[in-house]
């Protein structure tokens, strides 16, 4: 079936670059974002961001301004509407303006860069995001992260890490970060900057100060490489995934900072053993994963956990849910097992 979006098919169903870019730019508190396109595009994303913010107990709404292109703008060109909107945004005295284009604007061929260059009053950062013409949702995320990284200059490094490319539309985004911070805390290493989640332009200027970048996952590898090139900051390419992967994560971070990992690893292994005891009641059952075709990392974690609990995987097993992104860290696995237990006992 090619008509419904599946997580595995990323070419045609990869989502909108505009939404990806907005999931990043709207996290900068003292900047506004202009969406150059019909106002429907802005509403769709405003509503989506509003919903995901509420899911994360945040009531604040992003500052989006649509150029509100009408039929006549589309026929005669929308550059005038963009200039007018930029002038209005400048009057809001924000720290920076992000300009994001849409697929219709790319189709009609507006010279968005030229209009942005004619607004010298405050930094105007053009982020390539022409809807589906600019690639996928993840391209939008990466384009935005790379463009915003250019705001920061190299600076003195300290004993911190940056967290790079969190999935801001993810339902468990805060819980995933908390898990990473807990593991870092066990090693005594603080987080310098969440690039990019709920921060100011001033916070972003500290981007180069971390000694290590921790990427959310391989989808932002290009951003990690660019930051390594620009700030000479090495990176770990994923949040901790799976029981063994979480132990490996602790060791990698510890090695990177030259600190001992043994106590933190011991503590984590104890926690993992406790979890396996907590879920002994579902040991030995038979399950099938729902949906069956899931990202490989998610599958690997599910198999690893099933192996620890002697759970067999087969077509006649009880259907247990898997999420699109793999659970993060040891506590992510605990959440997953609660959902499995609910399904098995249903």
């Amino acid at each position, binding site marked *: 079936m090619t008509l419904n979006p599946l997580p595995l098919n990323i070419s045609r169903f990869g989502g909108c670059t505009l939404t990806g870019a907005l999931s990043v730019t709207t996290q900068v508190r003292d900047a506004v974002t202009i969406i150059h396109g019909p106002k429907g595009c802005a509403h769709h994303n405003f509503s989506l961001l509003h919903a995901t913010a509420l899911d994360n107990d945040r009531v604040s709404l992003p500052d989006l301004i649509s150029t509100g292109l009408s039929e006549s703008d589309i026929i005669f060109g929308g550059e005038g509407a963009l200039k*007018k909107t930029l002038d209005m945004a400048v009057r809001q005295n924000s720290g920076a303006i992000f300009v994001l284009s849409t697929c219709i604007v790319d189709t009609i061929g507006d010279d968005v860069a030229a209009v942005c260059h004619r607004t010298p009053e405050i930094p105007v950062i053009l982020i390539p995001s022409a809807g589906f013409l600019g690639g996928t949702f993840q391209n939008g995320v990466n384009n935005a992260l790379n463009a915003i990284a250019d705001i920061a200059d190299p600076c003195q490094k300290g004993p911190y890490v940056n967290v790079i490319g969190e999935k801001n539309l993810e339902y468990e985004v805060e819980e995933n970060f908390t898990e990473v911070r807990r593991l870092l805390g066990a090693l005594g290493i603080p987080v310098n900057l969440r690039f990019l989640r709920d921060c100011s332009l001033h916070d972003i200027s500290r981007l180069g100060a971390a000694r290590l970048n921790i990427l959310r996952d391989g989808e932002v590898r290009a951003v990690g490489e660019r930051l390594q090139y620009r700030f000479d900051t090495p990176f770990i390419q994923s949040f901790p995934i799976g029981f063994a992967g979480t132990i490996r994560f602790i060791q990698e971070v510890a090695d990177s900072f030259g600190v001992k990992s043994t106590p933190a690893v011991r503590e984590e292994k104890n926690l993992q053993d406790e979890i396996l005891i907590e879920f002994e009641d579902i040991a030995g059952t038979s399950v099938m994963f729902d949906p069956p075709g899931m990202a490989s990392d998610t599958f690997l974690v599910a198999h690893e956990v099933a192996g620890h609990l002697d759970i067999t995987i087969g077509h006649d097993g009880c259907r247990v849910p898997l999420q699109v992104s793999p659970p993060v860290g040891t506590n992510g696995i605990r959440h997953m097992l609660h959902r499995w237990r609910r399904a098995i006992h249903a």
Partner: protein
Amino acid sequence: MPECENPLWPCAMSGAAACLSGFEGVTVVIHGSSGCYYYPATLLHAPLKGTFILENEVIFGSEQRLHEVLEELSGDGKKIAVVMTCVPAILGEDIRSMLRDYDVLLVDSPGFSGDVETGYQKALFALVPSVDPDTPGINIDGACLFDPYSGGNVREISRLLAHASVPVGTIFCSDRLERVGNAAACTIGTNEDFASSVGERLGGTLGLEELKTTFTRIGSLFSEADPGPVLEEIEREDERIVRACDKFLRRFDPPHTVIFSGFSYATFAAYTLKHYLDADIQYIGSRNEPGATSFHIGHVHGFSKVKELIRHYNPDLIIGSSFERSVDPKRAFVGLTPPVRGTIKLAPHAVAGISGSLSFIEDTLNACMDRRK
């Protein structure tokens, strides 16, 4: 169209999808990118399909992709409706001729052509609704999947019609497709913003006063109808509302209120609050073009204007969507307008009918009293 900060209302494409996907027997295909598909798919919770076009289809044409999708969908007995989005609409392709070999309905309602109501009306017009004088009963219109209260409205008005011994005709737009072409001769509305213009309009169902007028009229026009039980229920529930509101007013002042909604729901809320609570309706920010009313009203389509109005009027009570609630979560708030995010709603709540008035007043009194605690 001027620039707009945080636009509050969906585009025409979403409206067309909302109309068409309300009908069983229609497969709705969004002809556009995955980005245009995802929003109505998540908003409407309907099984939409998409062409998910890519850059090469913009350059070389989308005909092949459209055929690929239609081939895959054809043959299941359902009518396929193709809804145009912005980019395909300006490519200059002769989509109609591309589709000539298929039994397909084409709705040209790109996002830039207007708001949700525009797209809804275009799609409904494309379905060519018509009256069959032999069809018994009364149609219900104003149902739109975009409106989270739509399902509750249909259920409530169907209940009341059954109570009055009147069969339900076609429900616009929440019915089987074949019923579009043989609607009953008369229609009552649940939300005038999504009125169908099909058949003779007997009146609306928002608010007990309007409901009473409409059912009295039904009684006078249909010899087999017995509106008595409905009118009795209206009277009984009206008394309950009066008692609850009267008790509230013994301790509290009437709420100073601003309302943000579509014109139809907004005026329902204003009349209801004025009538039962002597509320001061400070302003109505209508999401769509407002009609005539004695209340102070304007067309408000951006979030910055909402914030400005709330700051200006400093109301006790806000009626609106979760956008409005986010301006000041400490204020008394009642959700009436989509989207109402951040709360879980599983039961079918109504705005129309007797249940609608009861729910609205109940929510209002509870919100006002909770705020005072």
